[in-house]
């Protein structure tokens, strides 16, 4: 009896404290895939958001109000993501949702956000998230199509018109393969060979031999993710290709150079973000401040290098903080949504965002930088 009373009192006290504090708090909801198969996306995303919330609250919050973060781990499962999104809206009463590490989980959260009129910034890649435009849905990562266009623009500049493609059959590779084939014609690029490989394959020399034996191929493009591109890169070196190799933004990380081997990767090009060359950015670069601040803080807190994916979360958080600041009313999701849509020239780690009622991605091709691997390190290509 005694203990029951104490528990009840404690619960009441706790509730009292919580609701008391909640009045001066901005409730922000996050659902990312911090564990499971998409953990390589969700893990840095969760860490980034936790770090940024901590930083912001220590610095006094937004207009004096602290952010109360509710972070769920959906494990990459779209069903769980839907449950968590509903819980965020109904139980946690958040004013905005960030997250959706994968396109699958994003699609689940998206429908909840649309039904409930809560602004949602997705961290997933697919263009279908913002095309057609949905009132409450925004996203930070650039799309596969933009990566293709960036690569093809670079090829055009090199006078390359005929290429061979070798793509992974995983979701990322297949999607980018389709997007690249769609926009190749616009850039005067002809795809003469179109090969694929399974995500767990150990050797791609047969496919590459076919590409090599195709008359007129001037470059090889490899849309893919995980170990595939590293093995393709090694196989290309093994076969002694003399034509340039292009990889996608899917492998834009230092770990890739390590896996492929600096020697094999020498001279290959890919589109990446400023985050990857943080230590090589000129001080007058528009992104210098934001990229340096983020990489240093992340490294200091977690003793890990930043990834492009953490950068997406960083930008989503920066966008929502900016929008809440301008909205003036931290309680009204629709006011925040309107402010978000009016975002203009916000510099993030991925690029510079300017949303409009027709464009909820807000990035252009300048967000990508063409990088080349030189002596085991990334070098921006002019």
């Amino acid at each position: 009896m005694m203990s029951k009373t104490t528990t009840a009192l404690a619960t009441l006290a706790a509730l009292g404290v919580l609701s008391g504090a909640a009045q001066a708090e901005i409730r922000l909801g996050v659902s990312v895939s911090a564990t499971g198969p998409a953990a390589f996306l969700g893990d840095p995303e969760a860490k980034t958001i936790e770090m940024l919330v901590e930083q912001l609250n220590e610095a006094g919050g937004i207009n004096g109000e602290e952010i109360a973060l509710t972070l769920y781990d959906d494990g990459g499962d779209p069903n769980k993501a839907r449950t968590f999104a509903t819980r965020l809206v109904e139980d946690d009463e958040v004013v905005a949702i960030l997250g959706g590490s994968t396109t699958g989980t994003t699609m689940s959260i998206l429908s909840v956000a649309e039904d409930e009129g809560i602004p949602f910034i997705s961290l997933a890649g697919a263009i279908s998230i913002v095309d057609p435009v949905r009132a409450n849905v925004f996203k930070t990562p650039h799309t596969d199509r933009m990566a293709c266009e960036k690569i093809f623009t670079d090829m055009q500049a090199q006078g390359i018109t005929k290429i061979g493609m070798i793509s992974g059959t995983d979701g990322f590779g297949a999607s980018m393969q389709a997007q690249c084939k769609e926009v190749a014609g616009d850039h005067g690029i002809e795809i003469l060979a179109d090969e694929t490989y399974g995500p767990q394959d150990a050797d791609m020399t047969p496919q590459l031999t076919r590409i090599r034996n195709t008359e007129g191929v001037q470059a090889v493009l490899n849309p893919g993710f995980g170990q595939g591109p590293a093995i393709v890169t090694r196989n290309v070196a093994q076969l002694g290709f003399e034509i340039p190799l292009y990889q996608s933004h899917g492998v834009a990380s230092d770990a890739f150079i390590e896996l492929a081997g600096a020697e094999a990767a020498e001279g290959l090009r890919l589109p990446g973000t400023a985050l990857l060359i943080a230590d090589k950015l000129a001080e007058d670069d528009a992104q210098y401040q934001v990229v340096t601040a983020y990489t240093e803080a992340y490294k200091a807190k977690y003793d890990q290098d930043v990834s492009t994916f953490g950068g997406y979360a960083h930008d989503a958080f920066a966008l929502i903080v900016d929008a809440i600041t301008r909205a003036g009313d931290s309680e009204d999701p629709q006011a925040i949504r309107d402010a978000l849509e009016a975002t203009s020239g916000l510099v993030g780690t991925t690029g510079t965002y300017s949303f409009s009622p027709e464009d909820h991605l807000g990035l252009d091709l300048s967000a990508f930088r063409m990088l080349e691997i030189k002596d085991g390190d990334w070098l921006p290509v002019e």
Partner: protein
Amino acid sequence: MDALLQFLFSGLTVGAVYALVALGFTIIYNASDVVNFAQGEFVMLGGMITVFTFEAGLPLPLAALVAILVTSAIGVALNKLAIEPARGAPVVSLIIITIGASIVIRGATQLIFDKQLHRFPSFSGDDPIHVLGATILPQSLWVIGGALAVFVGLWIFFTRTLTGKAVLATANNRVAAQLVGINTGWVMTLSFGLSAAIGAFAGVLVTPITLVGYDVGVALALKGFAAAMLGGMGNPKGALVGGLLLGCFEALTAGYLSSQYKEAVAFIVILAVLFVMPQGLFGRKSTERV
């Protein structure tokens, strides 16, 4: 012509990887009729433990030895903790236990190590060897050589040693084996330890080619299992030939037909072979006594 040779080199490289995994299935299957679906996890552990001990500063051969010994101990533990307590259970239940074990090992690996892909340097550099216009990496020769060595070792073990024959006897009839004085519990422990060691050895050899991460075991085990079925489950010769054949089917299909169909064609060939020869190419004919 040089294209054909290149396809065959690719097929032999990949095939030797499959063969090494398939050879790992042999001992446990021979001792207990159990197909150990955690075999791919042993391969993964061999690679992962080598990566981390190597990065911790151990020389590569020593790191590989540590990985093989630790994985072998894990194999023994799997037998003691999961298989032995369920000794009376039918073979299907034991197989399901090994599937469970593989999930546990995978989960533990991503917690203890990490979720990233890793690699360590090839044993004899990365300069391709040129043969008649085609190229092969030195590491591929290591893998092919390793598969041959394990095959010869297993063949001698099963046909020339008393212990190997004790393993076969245990599978044949456990009670009869006990009656003639074979310690069947010990045979089971031995077979799990050896299988895990072979798996880890495979992991050490193939990691410079395939890379390693906590989740590579499933795909390896599936391909290795397919190779073992093609060659005949339980027969070291079958595992070797099955693995190499499977690798060559895939490479030739990718080279001459289309890379889209390479797995489909390989599996259609396997189905066709099993349709005509249900025991696989070199499988023993089992006769049911009535």
